[in-house]
């Protein structure tokens, strides 16, 4: 009993240490958004003034708008492409399957610097809409996001009992209704998880985005990255805090949706970890 107690308290301490290690930088950033000083590298005293500044800094707010627009559009496109690609891979495998999966994996393992350079030269060649506005950034993000969604959806569909669609047909459901009433609801957790991942990857992306961004179009990460002299003011920390809060809210909403859809806690956890 005593021995067990020692081991379990040691494990508890270890777990605590890991959590501290993972989350201290984030907590630090959140704290620094309430700093009065002009950079996040030195604490003076508490103030909310940078939260006000954040709203007035138009290059910051417009970069956030660009990021969100790109993330929403590329996630939507990735969900459409990836969901159907995942369904097709799992349900109608054939000679094309191996090659297709190979291409998807290639997208995921190619160094972004290579992707970005290649995409830029291709877009320059195409010209026109591929060199203006959000289009090039959306396209680049859609490419890797749809690869991710495809793999997640495919894993989920492969794990589904294929008799379920037959059971629906047996119970007089047309193929269309069987898809919308049986297959899609069961694949939905993977679609949601894939969508969240796609959204996050898009918000996060720096390298290939910086290659293809047309002049005058900057995403939030690229804005932060390009701040002159590496001086990061607390208004950026404030915006980052806002991002963290909305991410947590999004995860909560998805979990709620899954629970409504009848998933158990462990199944929800499995969805988020991509299993």
């Amino acid at each position: 009993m005593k021995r067990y107690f020692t081991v379990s308290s040691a494990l508890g301490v270890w777990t605590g240490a890991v959590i501290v290690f993972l989350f201290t930088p984030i907590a630090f950033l959140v704290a620094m958004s309430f700093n009065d000083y002009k950079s996040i590298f030195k604490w003076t005293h508490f103030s909310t003034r940078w939260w006000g500044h954040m709203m007035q800094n138009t290059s910051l707010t417009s970069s956030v708008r660009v990021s969100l627009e790109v993330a929403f559009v590329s996630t939507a496109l990735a969900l459409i492409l990836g969901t159907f690609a995942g369904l097709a891979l799992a349900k109608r495998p054939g000679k094309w399957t191996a090659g297709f999966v190979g291409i998807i994996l290639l997208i995921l393992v190619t160094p972004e610097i290579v992707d970005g350079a290649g995409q830029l030269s291709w877009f320059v060649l195409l010209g026109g809409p591929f060199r203006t506005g959000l289009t090039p950034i959306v396209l680049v993000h859609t490419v890797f996001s749809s690869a991710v969604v495809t793999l997640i959806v495919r894993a989920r569909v492969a794990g589904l009992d294929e008799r379920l669609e037959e059971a629906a047909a047996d119970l007089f459901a047309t193929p269309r209704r069987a898809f919308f009433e049986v297959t899609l609801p069961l694949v939905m957790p993977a679609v949601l998880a894939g969508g969240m991942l796609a959204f996050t990857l898009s918000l996060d992306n720096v390298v290939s985005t910086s290659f293809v961004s047309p002049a005058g179009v900057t995403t939030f990460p690229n804005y932060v990255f390009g701040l002159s002299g590496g001086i990061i003011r607390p208004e950026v920390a404030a915006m980052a805090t806002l991002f963290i809060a909305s991410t947590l809210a999004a995860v909560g909403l998805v979990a709620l949706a899954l629970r409504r859809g009848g998933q158990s806690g462990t199944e929800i956890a499995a969805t988020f970890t991509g299993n």
Partner: protein
Amino acid sequence: MSQDRGSVELVDVTKRFGSMVAVDTLNLDVHAGEFLSLLGPSGCGKTTTLRMLAGFEQPDEGFIRISGEFVQGVPAYKRDVNTVFQQYALFPHMTVAENVAYGLRQRHVSKSDIAARVTEALDMVKMRPLADRKPRQMSGGQQQRVALARALVNRPSVLLLDEPLGALDRKLREEMQIELKLLQSQLGITFVFVTHDQEEAMGMSDRIAIMLDGHVEQLADPETVYEHPSSAFVAGFIGRNNFWKGVSTAQGVHADDGTEFVASNPEEKVAPGQPALAAIRPECIHLSSTDPGHVINVIEGAVAGVSHYGDVLQYVVRTADRDVLALLPRQGAVRLAPGDPVWCHWQASEVYQFSAEQADLVLQDPAAEAQPG
């Protein structure tokens, strides 16, 4: 139409998967309202046959009529048949009641009628208290009942059951067998029941179609397939049998080990001099510890093993070339110990005689299988 409702007819039906012939010019008539089992070893085509009736597969050749109507090219969702799947295939994201209501909803039955019929169907399988559960919150036996209700609530002309009891433990399986049979006779719906378990088929069916290599080997009521198997395969598959290989004689079979079989009612006529099989069921073998003094329908050996199964004793008798299995009712059975000399003998009326075509299928020694370990 009405008098045919529930009849099924398969004529020269062939189904291939690539180069593999799953169902080979199969002919089968199922009468309206009967409980028919498709029985056979795995790979015999019974499940493929069922899937063609359901509409999940289309035959490559031949035709199928359900309730008198041709169903070529008619997809599953337009057929008036319902299926109970092997692993139930309940929709995991729907409650029990939603699962059962699914078929009625597709057919645009009114809401109040759906509620009434779902309740009725759940009562029928004693699952009403669990109407709001999700499938994963239920045991296998409970899921099985829901699957049955989900199919029967639609009042199909034919109910297809694909080894529905396979995943249940023995006791539950026996209870469900009785319930299924009762339900079927109450509802008068045609049941086509796929199984590899001969006891299940024997216990429930009005008729059994014993399948082998994609065709029907014999179609008859349980008593007939047991008493008068049409082939050596059927004789070996339904119940157990001791088989001997030999040569056909005028009265029976001269076995390769010298045993002389005289048959009074051979099931298959085999021309004298041709390779033939003789078979005796274990329960038709009498044992005696003294030489019965005749030379036909007898074989001499020594007791190799005795097993007690409550109501019966099972003896394994080792003869010169092979082991012979004998089942004796416990009451009045001769008591012998391993090593005792013994004579197995039998009535001429109990001798089955078959051509040797299916020798390879049946000549695994049943006594060897019956031995412990």
